[in-house]
């Protein structure tokens, strides 16, 4: 259990991110990885940041990256923008790869 990865995918109010989180979850289960994917809005990230190991930001809220990365830095959580092509395709596998790479 020590190796579980909790990832939060952030968008404006959790609409597209919940879909993407679902895809990532599926991909992780297929590979037998202990990953738990959450979705949320950037607004609530501040309070809950400490619960996660990795954060991803969706492209439509790219302009909030500075703000969000400040919070992520405080909690020492690696954060990146979701690869835009992977996002557009709702490609859970690719996004999972990105998460695993980021966690290293």
């Amino acid at each position: 259990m020590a190796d579980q990865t909790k990832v939060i995918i952030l968008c404006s109010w959790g609409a597209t991110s919940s879909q993407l989180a679902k895809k990532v979850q599926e991909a992780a289960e297929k590979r037998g990885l202990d990953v738990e994917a959450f979705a949320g809005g950037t607004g609530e990230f501040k309070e809950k940041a400490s619960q996660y190991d990795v954060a991803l930001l969706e492209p439509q809220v790219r302009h909030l990256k500075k703000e969000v990365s400040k919070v992520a830095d405080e909690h020492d959580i690696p954060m990146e923008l979701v690869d835009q092509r992977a996002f557009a395709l709702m490609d859970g596998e690719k996004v999972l790869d990105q998460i695993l790479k980021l966690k290293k």
Partner: protein
Amino acid sequence: MSRIMDIYKQLQKMGANGATAAEIGDIMQINRSTASRYLNDLVKARRVIKKPGKPVRYAVTQSAYEDRAESHIIGSGESLQPLLETGLAAFLYPVRPLPILLTGETGTGKSYLAEKLSDMAIENTKDNKDAPFIAFNCADYAQNPELLVGQIFGIKEGAFTGADEDKIGLVEQANGGILFLDEIHRLPPSGQEMLFYLMDKGVYHRLGEATKERRAEVALIGATTEDSESYLLSTLLRRFSVKLDVPPLRERTTAEREALIDYFLSEEAAKMKTELSIEETCRQAFVTYECPGNIGQLKSDIQIACAHAYLRFLNDENNKVLVKLEDFPGNDPIKTANNEQNITAFKIKTNRASGPSAHLFPNIYERLDSENKHNQNSDNDDLQKVVINYIRDLMKEYQHPSFSSWRDLIDHDLFQVLQNTQDHLNAIVPHEIHKSQLYIIGLHLQNYRNHLQQNVKKDPIPAMVHPNAAYRQAAHQLASQLQAELGMILPHEEIELMAHFLAPEQHKASDLTIEQELAVILVTHGKSTASSMAEVTNYLLGNNVIIAIDMPMDISAEETYDRVKETINNLMGIRGALLLVDIGSLITMGDTIQHELNVPVKTLSSVNLPMVMAAGRQSLISDQTLGGMYDEAKAALMKFTEKDQQENSIQKKRLIATVCFTGEGAAQLLESWLEDQLSTVDQDVLIRSVRIDPVTKDTSVLTELADYYEVIAIIGTVPVTIEGIPYIPAWELLQNEGISRMQKLLEITRKSAVPQLDDYVSGDEIYELIIRGLQEIITYFNPKTMADLLKKYMPPIRGHYGWDSNRELGMWMHIGSMIDRILAATLKDQSDEFLSSVPLDNTTILSEREFEIWNPLFEQLNKTFHIELADDIKREVVKLSR
């Protein structure tokens, strides 16, 4: 080709009556059937008409008969008429033509006008039809003032390093004719003096030629942007007895603008070899949109729109090239009538008369066409790339959309007052107030005003009294003017602060060149490798720190050795020299020189640009040692070759410092402006505004920052000198060169050597991606329907907010997924639950413009999916877009 023109000219001389093919044959000494063939070609080109009868007579067409240079100029009968008249009169002034100075904003067509004026003048002189017209843009050599002056006046062999033969100057080439110098303000003061002398006495010297006086009779036309007038010596400025201000596009009549649009469209049509039409809505957009880059921008925007339309045509979406509103690249969305039935399209007449040589840009369409033909199933992507690159090239010319907005930071009325007061203030203060100072004060006051409007409470700044009473008096004068005209009341301490702004900058840019105690000499094989690298570095560091010695193929190693030795020998009082070389014998040269000259010399081989940069920076640090400089430059080489990511963690973060007297005025404004300008690849750059005390000018904060960060530039309104860090004055960012300098600095300091090329996703790719992506997550509609709809309505929205592909793609997905949720909620009768799950924010207010760009999309969504988007939802989407 020239034969046909000769015939045409001959025919022109013969007037309305014309001539027969036989007569032409006689005159031109060609046989009758050849003459007849040429004449018929001219008829086809509509330059010549056939007159019925036997034998058939040929005459130039009436309009072509009156085809004088003047009639080509759009606006010659309207806004430009007084200009052309005065200009021509100046040229034809008895004895010697009067020098003309053209002023006007970028892109108003100053060089075009200069050329046309010259054509007209040459046409009007009786004897000398072959008078030369030489045009030269001083900006081409702006980085090397010596070479610039040399280009114009000529160079004597040995005048400076690299001048290995006599060179004729432009003045000599233009003797007896016209010399046009564009961006004349780029001339260094010495060059301006030489020009002044030439205008006055008709004599000049080649560079490096002290004794020999040369004579030239040259009619001079200079051109400069309005801003730059202050860079001209007043003696030279006065010498231009005729000053013509070329009006910006916004001051020209609608009819003229329409004529320009038609002209540019017809130019494009001529390139395409296929029918080109434009929708009336799009044409209207071109007629009405704000076009700060003037005619130049109008032209490139039209080219961009045509390229988009042509791509659609190639993709077989249309059977002819039709420029639609969505192709319109401007920022301002247009009030579109929503009823699509009303769309009318105008067919463009091709403008073959202008000839292919008139096109500045390579004919993109032919390239595309042939690519398409040769490669039947040619990849759509390839074509796309060609067009996208082409569009990008065009965009570069006019940095739109965002960079021009910087000037708009200052309210118009505020700036107006400043400008009006300038003369008045100049009467009070001992130094002439520079225009850049006005911008600085403007920036400061703007920020003050903004804070006032937003009711931002801030601690009053301490009053700092300037020692010179004249500046304080001027500041009070300005303050009372501001109060009288704008009702703007400034507190005492703000007025005192303005005195500091009005005082001349403590050091002018030229004084910033620091005495170098360590020389950096760059020697490489090749004609100009070393000088190019040195040029870039010197430019970026704002100091001439690198000495370049080129080693062309035909120069022997011995000769190069002598030149390097000589160069080092001529440098006074240096503590040592670092040789940066590439390969071969150059590597060992330093040791021998060290013995011969008794100056410490170290050598680094396999030189690259980061090394030159590092060495240049280090050489500016006063207590640096040769060894230390050597180590730093070597480290730069390692950094570049080793792509080890581990090093990233110890690399300092990049930072740009903005400075002003308060740390809250211009510096803060600059900070937020810069943040907006940073591209995706530069998101890691931090920006800090720093206060520089007007009295002590203490820079210890900056030095401290430099310990923790990689400070790539200091930008601001107070010139500061921190060793090794380039300073960019704020007003320089008002000009393209300042911006490009900043961008270059960002570019070379980026951590990843390879820019993220795949960062860019084109509009059409978004379309393809989203269809597949939506397929994955939505249930209640056809993804393609949504993608088609968004493709149609998103461009003006994207344009308005200036989104990058990341955000656009994100928004497509967001809207798609949102509509799916709404449909789900509607079908399950859970609309209220859905609405309550959306974080509502009633503070978002749509601007009029936003309403205009979003409404068509919202209405189409409602219509297509039979829903009614709630106002709250709309607001949320708009808010997310900002």
